[in-house]
């Protein structure tokens, strides 16, 4: 399958100057390489300063890289910026980019015309999108009176006005209340179903896991993991937690896995066993090992690792 976005060895350094003196040099991207297949939704994850926004801005043709290449639908973002702009829809901040005194409809028509649509085509497409995104009743109201959630939905309408093949969304749910954020997520799932290629950055890890086919995890300007959420968890070497309430003599107990002793909520001894392999195969082994040593197991629970744990472990230890 042909990649919609191809990034190879991308480098970007910001130089902060005071007058002519260099004050600070910050490496935002250090040889970043990844590819995104057509029709997939990919989340770019990473802590603050990881290089997510820089990557998005380079792919949106807003920022020039210092080195490496980035191509969107085969067009180079530096040499063929105009061609790239024709095939992308960019949302950098759900609340920004609107003209507050214009109505929602006027905003969309304005951007549609700038995308090369005729006024009538832009208007009919805008009306269709506003209806589709639940803004039909508010279309003739000035945008400055919209709620954050409405502005976010309008921003999605804006990036869709010219029906782009690739969507680049920088933290589309940032700053939204839970209900608005959920609404936006539902809309994004809809875009995924339409078969568009979507690159989305987010801090929200479960959101990334819920929405995306694949994840690209950045830290300090480098890709530290890439793949499906399961692959990323595995890549981080994450462990399942097997928690066993036990009774009996635990003194000198040594198992072949990483263990930790504690007290359960019911005040009983709690043995935590951390395993990396499939728990359906290992838990029976652990139970029989404990039984053979005279330890009685009262209850067993297996907790699957979350992406957040994986992320914190990887980024925190990086």
């Amino acid at each position, binding site marked *: 399958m042909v990649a919609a976005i191809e990034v190879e060895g991308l480098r970007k350094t*910001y130089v902060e100057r005071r007058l002519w003196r260099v004050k600070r040099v910050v490496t935002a991207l250090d040889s970043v390489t990844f590819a995104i297949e057509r029709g997939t939704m990919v989340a770019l994850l990473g802590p603050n300063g990881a290089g997510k926004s*820089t990557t998005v*801005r380079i792919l*949106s*043709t*807003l*920022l*020039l890289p210092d080195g490496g290449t980035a191509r969107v639908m085969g067009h180079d973002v530096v040499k063929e910026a*105009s061609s790239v*702009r*024709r095939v*992308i829809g*960019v949302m*950098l*901040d759900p*609340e*920004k*980019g*609107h*003209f*507050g005194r214009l109505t929602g409809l006027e905003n969309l028509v304005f*951007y549609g015309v*700038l*995308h*090369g649509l005729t006024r009538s085509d832009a208007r009919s497409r805008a009306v269709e999108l506003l209806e589709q995104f639940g803004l039909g009743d508010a279309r003739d109201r000035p945008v400055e009176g919209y709620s954050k959630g409405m502005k976010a939905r309008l921003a999605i309408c*804006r990036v869709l006005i010219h029906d782009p093949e690739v969507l680049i969304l920088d933290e589309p749910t940032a700053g939204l209340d839970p209900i608005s954020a959920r609404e936006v997520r539902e809309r994004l799932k809809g875009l995924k179903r339409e078969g568009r290629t979507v690159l989305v950055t987010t801090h929200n890890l479960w959101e990334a896991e819920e929405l995306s086919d694949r994840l690209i995890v950045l830290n300090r300007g480098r890709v530290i993991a890439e793949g499906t959420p399961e692959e990323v968890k595995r890549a981080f070497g994450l462990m399942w937690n097997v928690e066993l309430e036990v009774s009996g003599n635990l003194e000198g107990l040594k198992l072949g896995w990483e263990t930790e002793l504690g007290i359960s909520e019911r005040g009983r001894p709690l043995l935590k066993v951390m395993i990396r392999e499939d728990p359906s195969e290992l838990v029976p082994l652990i139970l029989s090992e404990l039984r053979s040593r005279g330890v009685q197991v009262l209850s067993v629970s297996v907790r699957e690792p979350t992406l957040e744990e994986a992320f914190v472990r990887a980024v925190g230890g990086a």
Partner: protein
Amino acid sequence: MAVLLAFFQGLFFLIGTLVRREQELFARISGYNDSVLYQMAGVPVLLLSLVMVSAVGEYVIELGRRGALEHIQTLPVDMKLVMGAHATTIVSVSLLYYFAVTVPFVYLRGGPGAVAHLLPAMLVLALGLLPLFLFAALVALLTLLVRTEAFLELVSASVYTFTGIAYPLTVFPQFVALVAQLLPHPHVAESVRLAVFYGVLEPARLVPMLAVLAGYAVFSTAIYSRIERVLRRGGRYEVVTE
């Protein structure tokens, strides 16, 4: 803003008309012989230029602050076209403004015949406003680059002081006069003055103005690409500073 501008322009004309009666006395006091009224006739050019620098600069900064500038940069439309559309609006409104506020004063001073002189003056001004807009657009881009609105104030103050419109260039040291000649303002102001007073499009004045216009067009196009590249390299389309 328009009311204030009209007020100040009227004030300049009024002062010019009153002082003209005491021209000899004024010349003795000031030490130079330029007619004050003649000097004042160039003031609308100065005012329009200041408005343009401020309007275009504020427009670009405001777009940046709202995030709209970044969004426009991600669209397949040339920023020069956006600026051109903005120029057309500003130049058209400025011409209408100039005509509306100048007619009464010119009529009072010279009667219907003098009003007829306004037509060539309008033509000259229409041409002259274009390099003034290009100047304002460059100032706006440079303001994005230096990231401080104080730059706009600095340019406005410099334009007011050093372009020989509010005061004759003869009062400045020679090098200041030379620098002023490189700016479009004195040429535009001088052409407008001639057109207002004599109703003629004098080639000796028009040719330098047209040359400046062409020069600014070439210079602006060349420098725009350079500034745009610097802005894209530094990610400076997002305006976050106050």
